[in-house]
């Protein structure tokens, strides 16, 4: 009896395996490696976050439409699955594989060793190498200008910066914010909060509420999906906030006063054009206020006084000309 039961189970499970065979009848195994240029991007979060991930996804999409090459993307790839996703695209013949975020550096290093013919790009990366290019944004300057604007607008003299994880790029952004805030308000202080979560909206909201309850009245949230929560808290409490990655004044009319536009469309457009022409090198590609296609301020909200706007513009001009380095 026991033996029969065993055979029974065995037959059931082989049946399950057989499904695979029937399902692929006629399928061509192993994609042919085409010679055409194609690009894949691996993203840590969802492409609908109106922040870092959406900016990256739309950047590659725009470039693929403008320059006419096929693209693919994987979203919500957790840290442990990064190497598999990256190397799978490399094997499928994608010429350029983008790891979207500094947290991809370690995985890209590992995968790039095995796929010498593929170019990898790490956005906010730290270690460019033979076939690894990095895209570096001058986060410190951006943070400085946003902090400066915040300092000029703050009534309480306390500014708030919300980050997710202490990745190098965001630490610099926060330091810049701090420096800029103090430059505009020598008697003020800038507080920061780290949520350890890029996407948790409720956490983003709690972090901002926490800063506001400590007196902060200008908040600069820099997570992914979590930004929405922070801006909601800012809106509910009637304070001022800053957008990031795109011009957020449109979406948050009475809350956001200015945005740190790190324009992935522009940045990725430029770098992918270079790649398509076969000129991409394993070095750090830098973006700052001098490359406005990729890096600039958004639009001011109408409530921002003209003299503050002018002050901020002059700071940007100074950074651009190299007269000042935050």
């Amino acid at each position, binding site marked *: 009896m026991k033996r029969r039961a065993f055979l029974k189970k065995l037959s059931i499970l082989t049946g399950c395996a057989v499904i695979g065979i029937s399902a692929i009848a006629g399928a061509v195994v192993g994609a042919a490696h085409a010679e055409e240029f194609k690009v894949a991007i691996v993203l840590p979060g*969802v*492409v*609908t*976050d*109106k922040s870092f991930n*959406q900016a990256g996804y739309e950047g590659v999409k725009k470039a693929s439409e403008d320059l006419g090459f096929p693209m693919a993307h994987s979203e*919500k790839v957790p840290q442990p699955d990064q190497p598999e996703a990256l190397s799978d695209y490399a094997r499928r013949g994608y010429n350029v594989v983008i790891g979207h975020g500094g947290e991809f550096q370690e995985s890209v290093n590992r995968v790039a060793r095995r796929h010498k013919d593929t170019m990898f790009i790490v956005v906010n990366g730290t270690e460019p190498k033979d076939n690894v290019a990095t895209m570096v944004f001058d986060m410190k300057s951006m943070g400085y200008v946003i902090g400066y604007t915040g300092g000029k607008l703050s009534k309480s003299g306390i500014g708030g910066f919300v980050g997710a994880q*202490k990745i190098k790029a965001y630490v610099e952004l926060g330091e810049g914010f701090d420096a800029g805030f103090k430059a505009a308000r020598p008697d003020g202080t800038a507080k920061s*909060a*780290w*949520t*350890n979560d890029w*996407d*948790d*909206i*409720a*956490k983003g*909201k*709690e*972090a901002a*509420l*926490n*800063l506001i*309850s*400590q007196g902060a009245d200008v908040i600069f949230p820099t997570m992914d*999906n979590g930004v*929405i*929560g922070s801006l*909601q808290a800012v809106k509910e409490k009637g304070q001022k906030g800053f957008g990031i990655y795109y011009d957020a004044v449109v*979406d948050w009319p009475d809350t956001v006063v200015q945005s740190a536009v790190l324009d992935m469309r522009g940045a990725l457009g430029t770098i992918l054009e270079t790649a398509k022409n076969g000129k991409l090198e394993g070095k750090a590609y830098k973006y700052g206020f001098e490359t406005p296609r990729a890096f600039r301020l958004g639009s001011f909200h109408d409530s921002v006084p003209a003299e503050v706007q002018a002050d901020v513009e002059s700071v940007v001009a100074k950074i651009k000309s190299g007269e000042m380095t935050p």
Partner: protein
Amino acid sequence: MDFIFDLSQLTDFLATTLRLSIPIIFAAVGGVISEKAGVFNISLEGCILGGAFGAAVGAFYTGSPFGGLIVAMLCAGGAGLILAVLGVSLGINQIVAGIAINILMLGLTSFLARFLFGGEATTMTLVGFHPIAIPGLALIPVLGPVLFNQDLLVYMMYLMVPAAWWILFRTPWGLNIRAIGQYPRAADTAGINVQATRYYAVVASCMLAGLGGAYIVLSQVFVFTEHMSAGKGFIALSALILGRWNPVGALLAALLFGLFDALQLRLQFNSPDVPYQIFSMAPYLASILALVLLSGKVRPPAAIGVKFVRGAK
């Protein structure tokens, strides 16, 4: 830690605690009802998520938070119905059934949310409930704004917990539920319809958990995001154990979990050098310790997880 000595900051801290506890309270009390009836409800997590999704869909299409509330309960109740069919009628292991429902809800809600809302899913702000201050009571320092300047769902919770306790322990209906969880055969002999009562209990349990999910969407963040339940259902399972299978106990335990969570967030925000994991872990350690100290005195319902077959030996 100096926020404890500043009245306005203390108020904010306690408000955070309550906000983080509400979904857990709804789910934990729901879990008590189901487990009292002898059915493990591991799918609380999926029910919260279903409730959150339903709330978003309902609020989006009807333009009213009440529409959201109804759809939330329907979605979560549907998940409960699946659990009841699998775990009560078919007698499939309730834990396996619960895990399957969690996986299903995670995939289904994420998929359908993208399908229905598209790229706008995270930026559109849904209609939701807004705080209503109770005249007089809301003026009490610290506790007033925390407890009595809340929205409808929180006031519903204030009523729901005593009601659940009263129904479970003071009405014949509650007696039936407890009887079929302890000794279904005797209950059956006494003329109680074991299967039907278990169905009601499981569906009600999931609907309550769904209200917890609705709270996250309609009162807290006003958007739906994928996997926004983030393990709250499992925390509710622990809370109901720490609360000794009693709605009031579950409430207190859930508040404790919320307090630790709020503390943990504060630490993460303000002093990143203190390992916040210690506070994330504390409620679970407390639950295990409570089980050890209370062992022998408090036991889960005896017939939990066991399929009841009428007339079988």
